């Protein structure tokens, strides 16, 4: 189910939330697990929920085994159990996600005709696999206690707010709340605000600029300015789409007493790529740092090894995003830039005015998104070329039209990428403690946001035909 759809909002949430709060506390994890697994996840892919159930059960069992071995001092056995878990989990992820890519590549390289597997990618497998792995690894490391309650563990993995699109919630992040959490009116109200912001970001900003990107990316040879507008549209689209989803997830989690980690911290204010990756998809960065970079040795084995580690981690980070080679290139693209920054670029940038660093970062980010957005290399090359030169010239009248017709969305996308709204919001909250009118304004604006988002969402399903379809 998609968060921004009537069935989720007015079917699923309308059922699950009231039941959640009506149930006594020790039944809430069970309800969370059952509704997330059999209603939310199984909705679109009924059979595939069994695959997730297998992973949950497998990691639940190995988690207990690892903890048991460690307790008894059998460290080799614990390590073996851990390795088996990692292999099985990554193996399943690799099988479902990457097999067909490798088959088609082998076919084209060796001229074979092996048929592709008829499997669909189970939704969220990239997310929940990383989450279950974080549990077993952290049990092994002694960072968290083993979870002997299957329902609680299953609730951790499946809970619907973060199941399909993150944030990647490590077990340690919610260990306490899983076993004992307190839902409160204040948390619920905060969750409502986060949810409303996320919904609006997705439906109002992301969808509108996404449409601009769709139109421009379909052009065969747009003028240079139009190509930049398209890349910028995608830059905003992907941020507000992903960030909006994370906001909704965090908001819904908060309503039910969970404090998920933040996933985005205004990445587009960054003055270096190093800073960008501390603000973009933060839970992914944390996961790769904790479970790949540090085990590889991080920066503790000399500069040469650190560079290698960075490139490995970033290659994997890129590749995690999708089963296509452009994602690997995208990851290595950033890996290389980060290495250069670490070696000398950062020091150099710090000497310059921060605006330079900001422009440098945004330029590299926008170009990075063009690499990310095009799985077809010839289309990617053509688009990158159009950013520099186009047979249609620098701009045409339609470039101006694309700016003016979407001016509102360009402006609010830019505005909400900066710190302004945050500072405004903080000011508002402070004032609302003293003067009631600000509190009223806040509630009214949340209601207005929800209404506007609802209208746009309703319009997505509008499908007129010229002649009657019977």
């Amino acid at each position: 189910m998609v968060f921004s759809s009537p069935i989720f909002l007015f079917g699923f949430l309308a059922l699950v939330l009231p039941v959640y709060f009506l149930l006594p506390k020790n039944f809430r994890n069970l309800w969370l697990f059952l509704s997330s697994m059999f209603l939310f996840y199984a909705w679109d892919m009924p059979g595939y929920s069994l695959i997730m159930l297998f992973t949950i059960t497998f990691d639940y069992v190995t988690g207990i085994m690892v903890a048991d071995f460690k307790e008894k001092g059998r460290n080799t056995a614990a390590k073996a159990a851990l390795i088996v878990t990692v292999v099985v989990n990554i193996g399943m992820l690799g099988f479902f996600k990457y097999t067909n890519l490798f088959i088609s590549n082998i076919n084209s390289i060796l001229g074979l005709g092996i048929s592709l597997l008829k499997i669909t990618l189970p939704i969220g497998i990239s997310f929940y696999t990383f989450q279950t792995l974080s549990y077993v690894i952290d049990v092994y490391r002694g960072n968290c206690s083993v979870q002997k309650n299957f329902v609680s563990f299953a609730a951790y993995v499946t809970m619907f707010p973060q199941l399909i699109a993150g944030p990647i919630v490590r077990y340690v992040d919610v260990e306490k709340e899983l076993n004992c959490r307190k839902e409160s009116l204040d948390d619920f109200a905060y969750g409502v605000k986060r949810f409303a912001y996320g919904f609006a970001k997705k439906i109002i900003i992301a969808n509108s600029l996404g449409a601009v990107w769709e139109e421009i990316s379909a052009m065969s040879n747009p003028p240079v300015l139009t190509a930049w507008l398209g890349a910028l549209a995608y830059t905003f689209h992907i941020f507000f789409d992903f960030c909006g989803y994370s906001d909704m997830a965090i908001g819904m989690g908060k309503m039910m007493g969970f404090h998920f980690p933040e996933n985005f911290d205004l990445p587009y204010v960054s003055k270096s790529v190093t800073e960008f990756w501390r603000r973009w998809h933060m839970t992914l960065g944390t996961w790769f740092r904790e479970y790949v970079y540090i085990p590889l040795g991080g920066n503790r084995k000399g500069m040469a090894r650190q560079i290698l580690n960075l490139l490995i981690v970033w290659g994997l980070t890129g590749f995690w995003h999708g089963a296509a080679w452009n994602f690997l290139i995208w990851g290595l693209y950033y890996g290389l830039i980060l290495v250069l920054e670490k070696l000398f670029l950062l020091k150099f940038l710090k000497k310059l005015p921060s605006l330079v660093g900001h422009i440098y970062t945004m330029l590299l980010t926008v170009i990075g998104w063009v690499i990310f957005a095009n799985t077809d290399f010839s289309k990617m090359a053509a688009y990158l070329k159009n950013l520099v030169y186009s047979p249609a010239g620098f701009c045409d009248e339609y470039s101006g039209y694309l700016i003016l017709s979407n001016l509102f969305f360009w402006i609010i996308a830019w505005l909400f990428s900066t710190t302004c709204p945050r500072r405004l919001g903080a000011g508002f909250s402070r004032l609302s403690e003293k003067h009631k009118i600000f509190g009223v304004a806040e509630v009214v604006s949340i209601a207005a946001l929800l209404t506007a988002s609802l209208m746009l969402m309703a319009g997505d399903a509008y499908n007129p035909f010229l002649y009657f379809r019977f």
Partner: protein
Amino acid sequence: MKNIALTLVFCLFIGIFSVGSFLAPDRDISENENRPLAQFPKITAEGVAKGRLQADLNTWFSDQLLWRDGLIAGKTKLQKMVGKRDIGDVYICRDGFYIEKTTEEEIDPEIFESNLQAVDLFFKNSGLEAARQNFLLVPPAGYVLKDKLPRGAAFFDYESRKLQAEKITNGSFLDITSVLKKKAENNYYKTDHHWTTDGAFLAYKQFCKIKGIQPLSFQKTLLSDSFLGTLHAKALDSDAKMEKIYSYRRKGDESYRFSINGKATDFGIYDGDKLDTKDKYAYFFGGNYGISTVENCGGEGHLLVIKDSFANSFLPFLLPHYGKVTIIDPRFFIGSVSELLKTEGVTDVLVLYGMETFISDKNVPAILG
């Protein structure tokens, strides 16, 4: 206090649209969208296992959302408020005009070329002399009324396409572009993608002028002043103003015998019932069919027309010049046009399309079959 209010707002938001959508009776059709709306699906174990029930429920919810029409109209209002100049693939233009957004990028030059070749071959195969072959492409509003488009709006290049059409079908192409440019605002509907009957009449007079025949006289009558057409449906702008739709009548035209797919109709060529529906343009001939014939028109000869819906407001002017007119719409026609040409004693042929349809319709080459 504020937190109680926020919680309440959220609960009302979820509650109203969930309970309301379930309790409100299912609507049958969407007049604006011209399609039936999904009804609440039957719950079967098989449907659940295959995922069909879930997909049906997704659609049901989207189609039967409480206050759906109002919400969608609200969406258009919001988009206009923030300055969007095209909504639902329709440009919001000056003076209350709506113009379909068709850009160069959307045109497939191969389809257009093959359609033109098909028409040229069709004429050659007809065995008729050049003067009896007629090819009319109606220029789009986006070209004739281009000064109404929002500034910088992209629209496909009509002129080069017209020249291409003239070149390939040399001689049979009749250019009506210049007459439609005169008093252009009267010649196209504001809320519909078709030309008005006024525009069709001007084209008729030009047609007669080129062919050297005397145009007949008609009486202009008002059919309705509450017409909201296809472009209103696409953009769903509540600011759209209803407009007038006219027909040009001629004495005796009620006695035309009109048959659709072989069956006689009871309404002549004008279907008055359609004036009570949203699709008032369907007054002309009742709509589009694979094959229909009009007989007893008062003139001589048998005209074969290959057309799209643009011809519907044009043909009433041509009918009295012929004895019988056979009308074929390749989108719906299953049969052989070349057979018809051989066996039905066709004396004249006319291919009439709106340029926007002709440039993208894949069914045109079927006329060679």
